[in-house]
């Protein structure tokens, strides 16, 4: 019985209560805007919404209506589905091609011995701390010179190679036993075959980690898509939300419905891959 009583004591100690209170407060701060977003998007009366947004009423549901969602989906000027497709094309391409390219780079760094390997690895790790914003202007000049503006590939190609993903793959591959590579080499497998048939099938955890982290990063990317897209044809959701928000007169119910639908795929992805997502954040332990 002793362990039970000590556990009870621990749960009701002042320090524990304080910890739970702090966690509850933090959760409320995080969840509050989401609740307001959902509740507001379901209110049909614009005047009522404006009145409610100033106080606690913003959290309290009124009569439920999907009118705001219908209007957002019917809007020809700000085509939600177009933005969604653009985002999906960009994110899926970056993640898919990124997994191949970054894992191949990491495999070479982890397994092959060549002159300058350590320097190259150091440079790649150093690149992790360089923010995209600092590269945006020279990169813009380059893609403009190439005539890539306002396209999918201008949003995809510059971000396929991803230093942090290379680093994650490198760390994972370095821990895989080299005996596996050597056994496959003894079996007559080429370097490509070893990478593709032996190493990659064993790398599901790191592939999931990279996919989740890269997917989230580029789902919400804003600055670069804003700089390189001019019309709605190639614009992603992140820029679309801001553009929708900037319309006058501001229809808060529709803004919230738009934001809700833009967040929904990420929330579904999070709930589906929650376990891997937590593992990835813990595993990477560098970048949140």
């Amino acid at each position, binding site marked *: 019985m002793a362990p039970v009583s000590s556990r009870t004591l621990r749960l009701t100690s002042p320090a524990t209560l304080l910890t739970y209170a702090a966690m509850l407060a933090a959760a409320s701060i995080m969840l509050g805007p989401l609740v307001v977003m959902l509740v507001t998007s379901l209110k049909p009366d614009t005047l009522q919404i404006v009145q409610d947004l100033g106080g606690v009423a913003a959290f309290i549901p009124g009569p439920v209506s999907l009118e705001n969602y219908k209007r957002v989906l019917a809007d020809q000027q700000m085509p939600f589905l177009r933005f969604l497709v653009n985002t999906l094309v960009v994110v899926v391409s970056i993640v898919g091609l990124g997994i191949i390219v970054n894992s191949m780079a990491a495999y070479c760094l982890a397994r092959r011995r060549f002159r300058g390997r350590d320097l190259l690895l150091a440079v790649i790790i150093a690149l992790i701390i360089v923010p995209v914003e600092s590269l945006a202007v020279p990169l813009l000049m380059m893609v403009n010179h190439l005539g890539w503006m306002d396209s999918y590939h201008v949003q995809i190609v510059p971000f396929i190679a991803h230093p942090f993903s290379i680093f994650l793959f490198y760390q994972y591959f370095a821990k895989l*036993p080299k*005996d*596996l590579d*050597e*056994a*496959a*080499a*003894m*079996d*007559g*497998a080429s370097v490509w*075959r070893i990478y593709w048939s*032996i190493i990659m*099938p*064993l790398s599901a955890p790191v592939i999931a980690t990279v996919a989740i982290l890269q997917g989230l990063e580029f789902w919400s990317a804003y600055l670069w898509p804003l700089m390189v897209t001019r019309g709605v044809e190639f614009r992603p959701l992140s820029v679309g939300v801001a553009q929708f928000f900037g319309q006058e007169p501001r229809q808060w119910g529709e803004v919230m419905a738009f934001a809700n639908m833009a967040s929904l795929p990420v929330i579904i992805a999070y709930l589906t891959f929650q376990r891997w997502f937590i593992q990835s954040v813990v595993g990477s332990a560098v970048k949140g």
Partner: protein
Amino acid sequence: MAPVSLRQIRKSYHELSVIHGIDLEIADGEFIVFVGPSGCGKSTLLRMIAGLEEITGGDLTIDGVRANDQSPVERGVAMVFQSYALYPHMTVRDNMAFGLKMAKADRTLIAQRVAEAARILHLERYLDRRPSALSGGQRQRVAIGRAIVRHPKVFLFDEPLSNLDAALRVNTRLEIARLHRDLGNTMIYVTHDQVEAMTLADRIVVLNGGRVEQVGTPAELYERPANRFVASFIGSPAMSFLPAQIAALDGGRLTLALADGRPIPTHHRASEATRLGDPVTIGLRPEHLAPDGPGSAALPVEIQDIEYHGDRRFLYASAPGANGLTMAIPGGRPFQVGDRFDARFDPTALHVFDGAGVALPV
């Protein structure tokens, strides 16, 4: 099946030389064991034969063809790793078939070879399991099966029993010996366990510091070690050593003097460099030193420790000028730590090593 020839094989990592010019002829169908302490270069030498390590210098010939620049597959060798190195995401069947698939072998042939290997290694029931669902011994058998299906000219084993428990190690050792009898292939086997070396090998290669100390049959190495290193490495418990001096050269036969001056006539002959008064080392196997043996020579000892091994006991004793003398005795007469007596040995059974550790001829 194929003979393997190593001529002045060397390996260096930048300035660091680890294999210093090894010459070795391995006959067709022979079971050769590389043995030596950690870091002696035995695994490196095996990996050079496998094609997993580049050969810095010398010539490696497999089945009469220079193999230095060939890939492992071109060399016709298959290797069993210490860690098994099974592909965790594949079934036993796929693990064994992988090499043949890489060689683009016909499906029927692959199925036939896998079934044959599974039968030889009693793995038929496990073909659709993943390695994680197998015991250590079963995994090792799959690793051997993966080598068998390719019908290689030469089998290479890199400490294949190290990860198995004691009972399983004995069983798997017997299976490997049976496999060699059945297949008749050339096999090269690396181990640091001298029991494995003694029981499996046709010939043993004792390596030390990247050099060959001695090559010979297990009996040759045990009975006629070429130097003190081989004498101490082969045999368990190890050979005991006593310091002595050359006291007389009677018609070419040496008489030695122990630390207390006691003379020991031997049947060893002096080498050209041997001089009267030179320090030498006497080597005695545990079974050649006994409390009341038939030998004509006597050595006063005091028991320091006793180990019970069921069928026999090992007495660890000290003598004038020497510690750690080992005697292997059958059960029976009881001994106590601290007992003193004259241990007896036959001078014709002892080994004599000169100051450089080289065995003096008989």
